């Protein structure tokens, strides 16, 4: 064996790993570019560049510029980044936990559970005494959504996993049942809602970043930020879990703790995302899948890449949703579904064996 042979023999297997690490940088750069485009795009014709030039020259911004850039586009940008990262990371974590590339909070009823929590908070929150409403304020809806997502994830896991093995069929069917149940209860609540609540619900249910405000950012941002950062520590555990619960335990992973942490992270990220942006589908299933194709299934790099790509794609979809029928807006959920559903079908076609019920 020559020296070059032995070097390539050792270096070659790490190809995917180094590619995945390079992807951190490229995706972060891409996210930066899309962020700037997002800030610069809008129906009012307010120029980001004009405002930056003014700031650099020390001139004051007009009230219009301040409102459009700072109070409308900036919270929308941050919300887009956090929600996109949340959806993609909860998809990746859930797929790792269930050991299946089809597990996605949107598909298996976790988003529906979170949505039910949010609706409960919107409709029944009004019944709380005024002082409690003041205390809970903006946090009530995200917290309720988190609880709803958490409960549905736990139920789903209990139902579909036996002795560390998840049945895909049971998982998907249980997800359908959970989604239907949540939808039914949500329907009852909609009947009970008054006009103002109904408007809130409709606005929320469309799945949009249009209602982005700083208060939403302040409520959802920290929850999602914590969940995404915490998820980055699950990489090794989720890799080991791919070998099954027993083998993961033999590899030194505290499996119960890993599972509880995963469920909490999925619930927090999905709950907060659903609470502020409604039902935005397909990011959670498409993003991790594309990354696995490109750089392999190693969760130690996949989770960060998923956060970056999820944020980028959601911002991209948001820009499309703002431009395509400007000055009106398409709900972003429609854009992600139109782009994501075909990809999802393509995954099914390629990997038909996985859903061999």
């Amino acid at each position, binding site marked *: 064996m020559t020296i070059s042979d032995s070097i390539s023999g050792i270096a070659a*297997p790490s190809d995917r790993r180094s590619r995945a690490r390079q992807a951190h940088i490229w995706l972060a750069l891409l996210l930066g570019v899309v962020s700037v485009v997002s800030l610069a795009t809008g129906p009012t014709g307010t120029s980001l560049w004009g405002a930056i030039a003014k700031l650099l020259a020390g001139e004051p911004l007009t009230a219009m510029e301040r409102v459009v850039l700072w109070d409308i586009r900036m919270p929308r940008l941050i919300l887009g980044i956090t929600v996109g990262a949340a959806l993609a990371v909860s998809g990746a974590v859930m797929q790792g936990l269930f050991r299946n590339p089809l597990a996605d909070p949107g598909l298996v009823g976790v988003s529906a559970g979170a949505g039910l929590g949010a609706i409960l908070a919107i409709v029944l929150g009004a019944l709380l005494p005024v002082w409690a409403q003041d205390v809970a304020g903006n946090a009530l809806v995200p917290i309720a959504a988190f609880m709803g997502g958490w409960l549905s994830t736990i139920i789903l896991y209990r139902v579909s996993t036996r002795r560390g093995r998840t049945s895909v069929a049971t998982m998907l069917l249980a997800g359908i049942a959970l989604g239907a149940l949540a939808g039914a209860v949500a329907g009852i609540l909609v009947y009970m809602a008054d006009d103002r609540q109904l408007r809130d619900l409709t606005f929320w249910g469309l799945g949009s970043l249009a209602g982005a405000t700083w208060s939403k950012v302040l409520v959802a941002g920290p929850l999602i930020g914590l969940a995404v950062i915490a998820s980055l520590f699950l990489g090794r555990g989720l890799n080991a879990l791919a*070998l099954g619960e*027993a083998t993961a335990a033999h590899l*030194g992973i505290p499996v119960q703790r890993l599972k509880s942490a995963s469920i909490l992270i999925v619930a927090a990220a999905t709950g907060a995302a659903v609470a502020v942006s409604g039902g935005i589908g397909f990011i959670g299933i498409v993003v991790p899948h594309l990354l*696995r194709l490109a750089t*392999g299934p190693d969760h130690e790099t996949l989770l960060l890449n998923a956060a970056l790509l999820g944020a980028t794609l959601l911002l991209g979809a948001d820009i499309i949703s703002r431009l395509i029928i400007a000055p009106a807006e398409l709900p972003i959920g429609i854009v992600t579904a139109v782009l994501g559903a075909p990809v999802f079908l393509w995954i099914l076609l390629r990997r038909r064996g996985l859903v061999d019920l």
Partner: protein
Amino acid sequence: MITASDIQVRIAQKTILQGVNFTAKPGQVTAIVGPNGSGKTTLLRALTDEVPWTGRVQINGQDTSAYKPWELAAVRGVLPQAATLAFPFTVIEVVRMGLMSGIHGHNDTIAQRALDMVGLNGYEKRFFHELSGGEQQRAHLARALCQVWEPVQNGSPRWLLLDEPVASLDIGHQLLIMNCLAVFAQRGGGVVAVMHDLNLTAMVADVVTIIADGHAIARGPVADVFNDQTLSAAYKCDLRTNTVPTHPKAFILPQVARLSCSAV
């Protein structure tokens, strides 16, 4: 040293193992044999906490329950009978998973040498799920070998607990793997293997425990335990142990004369 005392396993109101005592010493290959359904795999699962059990299991003088998961992983590598794998990992990625619990971190040289040991040199970048059953089994063994790469660490032995490590291998690879295990034991580590093939066991194991009907019916050096009466009683058929003058190890020969045609 692994010691297990008074192990009892009940699954769904059925007693699988009853009052089993078991010991394995470092520097030896300890085999667990017995007929199908006797409880030999269950014993290994009790030793590795894969089934609920009562009794006491100690590794290197400490109860297994007193170890943290990652401490236990640094002391013993486990190879289950059938390991599945979600997601398209490559062979080297699977083998590297064995390194993550130990002090070696992502040491590709060790992963590479483990693959060489199990005869999978050149398979690094192949997808794990595209390998044959026997190749997958060897890749998993390489992963377990990585986990306990140095047979002795800080003066205490490390362990390989394996459930039928050569079950789906051809005879050449069976010998290769059994040789790996024997070398691991010679270097001071301990090997506990559930074995199906009595001749292979007779050739490689130092000590054997025979499980039949949920009880350990015999324990001791292979030369003492593998005799006609014990084996015939355990497997409920007529077996003879023999030796050939050129080879000191016993081999076991089933006695075909007892076969009858009553089923026809």
